[in-house]
């Protein structure tokens, strides 16, 4: 991954943190997935989001 891409992902994470509407644990998980050598599939990301939504539901 190029330096520019890394910086963009850092900015992306900062933007999400600033907005505050996405849980910190999900942001961290997303960052890990998006910076991994093999890009995750959309289905896999959707599962991550669903799991996060389940955790957020009483």
């Amino acid at each position: 991954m190029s330096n520019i891409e890394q910086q963009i992902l850092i900015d992306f994470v900062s933007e999400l943190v600033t907005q505050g509407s996405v849980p910190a644990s999900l942001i961290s998980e997303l960052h890990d997935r998006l910076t991994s050598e093999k890009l995750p599939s959309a289905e896999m990301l959707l599962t991550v989001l669903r799991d996060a939504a389940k955790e957020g539901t009483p």
Partner: protein
Amino acid sequence: MIQLEAIHIEEFRGIRKLDLKLDCKSFVVHGPNGSGKSGVVDAIGFAITGTISRLSGPGTGGLTVLRHGPHVHRRDDPAAAKVSLTIRDTTTGKSAVLSRTIKAPGSFTLTPDTTEMREALRSVQDHPELTLSRREIIKFILAESGKRAAEVQALLKLEGLEERRKTLKTTLSLASRDVTGSKASLEDARDGARRHFDVADLDATEIMKAANKRRDLLKLTPLQELSLDTDFKQGLEQEETQTTFNKASATRDVEALVKALAHSEVMNDNIAALRPALSDLASDVTILEALQQREFVASGLDLVIDAAVCPLCDTAWENVDALRQHLQEKIARSDAAAALQKKIMTAGTALIAQIRSLRGLVRATQPHALAHGDVPLQLALEQVYEDFLTVETALGSPQGALGQKERVDSDLLRIPADLQDGLAGLIRTLRALPDNSARVDAQSYLVLADERWSQLRLAKAKYGRSMAVKSSAQTIYDAYCKSVDTALTNLYETVEGSFSEFYRQINSDDEAAFKAELGPSSGKLDLVVDFYGLGMFPPGAYHSEGHQDGMGVCLYLALVKQLLGDSFRFAVLDDVVMSVDSNHRRQFCELLKERFPDVQFVITTHDEIWAKQMQSSGLISRTGHARFYGWNVNEGPAAEQGVDLWDRIDADLAKDDVAGAAHKLRRGLEAIMTDLAEALRARVAYKGDAKYELGELLGSVTGRHGDWLSKAAKSANSWGNAAAKQSVEELKDSRSKAVLAQQNENWAVNALVHYNEWASMSKADFVPVVKAWRQFLELFQCDNAACESWIYVSGAAGKEETLRCDCGVYNLNLVGK
């Protein structure tokens, strides 16, 4: 990063054996077309990456490195074809030898093999863009904006950005689909609850009233409030909760299905909208193909450059315009196909929702048929349920919808003829059942109420989660796009500035106010450039091919500078400057030399004047070039490296080849006089074709040189600088002697070349001629052997400042007091 100290090539492509010494400095390989120069570029690329770009990509079907990499005479012996590069790690300054053979292109040897050296090598392997051909640079300039964005992002290693964006976008689409599905399930659950409670709306008061009526009968505590967690059967004994059949509720379920099937005409508007669209699709099978090939064909059109061969299938075309037109027609057809697709999907989506609702009613009815022993009806309902599911899935795509065309044209639902009768029979059966006791009826009512309420609670929770997931997906996608757009806008502003600056330097004489604008938007990258202050236009609109080539290199350099920063230390430019007009070559060389002093450029060109220009501008040293000529299949290219004019002439004379020596002297003088005329700003009668005879330049150069020395003498006098005055006088004296000697021998050069009198001239006759010319040319160089430039005039026209060489040893002030 690495730089090249030396190259060794054996039995590779058109080269039998070749050694070049580069010493980590810029280097030019020049020679006529077909002389084997590209073999050097291929060899460098192969040694570094194990691939040969010329043997891959569009139009190279059937070509392989293993079979076509070795010299044709060694095609059955790939082990004999090898390349070794002596490389230097620019960080540590250490050297190693990198070797690779065609037999094992996937592996290489590195001696010594250290972690640091592998790291340095990887920095080049990760950047294939460091080898640049003209075909590639022009892609940045003339490509349409979407393709340009892809090319530029690939060069900047930003392809991952778009991949991630697409993945996040697909995630958002999947999340939206989940919302649609869970919303439909929620509606089904609501319908089920409404039917059971027999209410028009899920009004809390009405529901509690209905439930408390039964609870009161059973002497249970009345419900005080209604929430999704309400337990309708609270207080019932365990055995009382086993009663799950409620006659009235079951009857309403079946009646709802009968009513919905009887009013299926509500689908007619959507069916009517779908029919003509499917007819259009069925009438031309190429529409579907066009939809499937849309993206593929668009990428093919971008790849068509100047060859009449389709880049997608290698088919040869009569001419490139016909090929372009063919591909454009395909894209136009796919535009119409896309509009048709939209119509089909709009009507299809509405029908899917309607069929899904019917399917929900079928599912609610099935248990009642099963419970009352109507096996044929249960099987028929099962079949209808599966059939509806199949139709729903099919309507989700144009191709699937086309498969349902016959049903859409005749009877989409295809309800079995006896289903209605079966359902009517089930209703009769239910009604004929003896009424339960009021107590049992109340128990089953509460049990079923709780079941439907639970389904509603679960459906609502699922819908809520799907909405939360969609909301997160949307927030994430928006934040990502915002971060990318902000970063790319800043990045392109920087690139835009460097690009404009570089181009202005090359074209300072006529485009000093040049500026470019890069406009990133939605995966595209528009490029417009200033045209002589008359407006901003696409680069291909008015600028000449030569200017476009210049732009291509400048944009490339700006991008690589942005990508690598100070790590940019090596690049191969494969004939990329072929079209740059002669007026701007020197500036181009100066751009590379001044802006990228630490970069080793390996440059190929078929133009000898270009090679001379690179030398005279100081971009390459006197030994930093190899001349290729006389390639033949058995021996490969004849090549000379760093042999200057005098050495080549001496070599000919040593063999008594006076004709060869004379030819080299004449050709060499012509090239040198061109450089000197430019460097000294000689006044030459203008010729449209810029082809000047030696004699036409010689007089002007000699005269102008004299003028500058006189001006330097006047300057020295005005400043009272005795040392400078003496220095100029010595130079004038040397000039007088050298010019006289040269004039005395000049007849010989003319005679040799024009009248072929060389046959009667011996080596002894010719040696003094060479000596005189050598002495003459020394007038235009300093005494520093390491300085390889000709002297030149600095300062603007009319405001000349100095007559000097690159190293500064020769430096005469031209400005008077």
